[in-house]
């Protein structure tokens, strides 16, 4: 069993963040939706600030927080691009990703989000089982 201290701490911080955003702005955090706003909406400043913050915060990994397992060896551009296409299209069609459905949706017991999370977990597990 891996040490779960950091995953739990990180998860609590993620929950604190989505709650903070909810209570201040009245909105849910959904990364795929915020990225789409940055790309296709007129008001681009706010989603841009969010995404810059996200990348800056995430870059603490490997500097302030050391990986417990190394990054995978660089994978083929084709695999990454097919993955990106499916994630980009699928999250928009399904109206959310791990944050919007998985965290914010399940937190308010949305039936749509619970079903979506079960479906994407299932297809992801099958994909890993087939490809590994």
């Amino acid at each position, binding site marked *: 069993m891996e040490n779960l201290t*950091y*995953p*739990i701490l*990180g*998860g609590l911080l*993620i*929950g*604190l*963040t*989505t709650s903070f955003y909810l*209570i*201040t*702005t009245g909105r*849910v*955090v959904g*990364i*795929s939706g915020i*990225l*789409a706003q940055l790309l296709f909406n007129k008001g681009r400043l*706010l989603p841009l*600030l*969010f995404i*810059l*913050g*996200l990348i800056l*915060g995430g*870059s603490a990994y490997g500097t302030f927080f050391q990986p*417990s397992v190394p*990054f995978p060896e660089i*994978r083929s551009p084709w695999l*990454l*691009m097919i993955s*990106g*296409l*499916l*994630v*980009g*299209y*699928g*999250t*928009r*069609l*399904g109206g959310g*990703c791990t*944050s919007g459905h998985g*965290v914010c949706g399940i937190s*308010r017991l*949305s*039936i*749509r989000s619970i*079903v*979506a999370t079960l*479906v994407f*977990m299932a*297809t*992801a597990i099958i*994909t*890993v*089982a087939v*490809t590994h």
Partner: protein
Amino acid sequence: MYAFVTFLTGLLFGLGLAISEMTNPAVVIGFLDIFGDWNPSLIAVMGGAIFVGMLGYWIKNKRLSPIIANEWQVPNLKHIDRKLLIGAGLFGIGWGLSGYCPGPGLTALTNNPLEGIYFVGALIVGSAIHHFQNVLFRK
């Protein structure tokens, strides 16, 4: 104020991904690999996030309006349709292929740029295909 809150939310969310190691696709694939050498960390991440997230909704339900906005904009759709199922299914396949969902994929631009550039480029194209499909074939 709104801009500062938005930036801070992004920053803390990214930090949460970094602390919980969701920024590392090896950890994510280790979680999804339930038939192999399973790493349960994502359950702990989601459990922690959902627990605090529920407290957030509990506070929300005690308030009339958000602090710096006029009204709540929480989705309240309830129907399960084909779009939801197919979209979530395709997303899961893409997620399982690389171990990147949108947030960690974006952080890969700095953490693992040789992968992040391809993933995020295609992520934008996938999102754009959906957008223009909606514009062209709006029912």
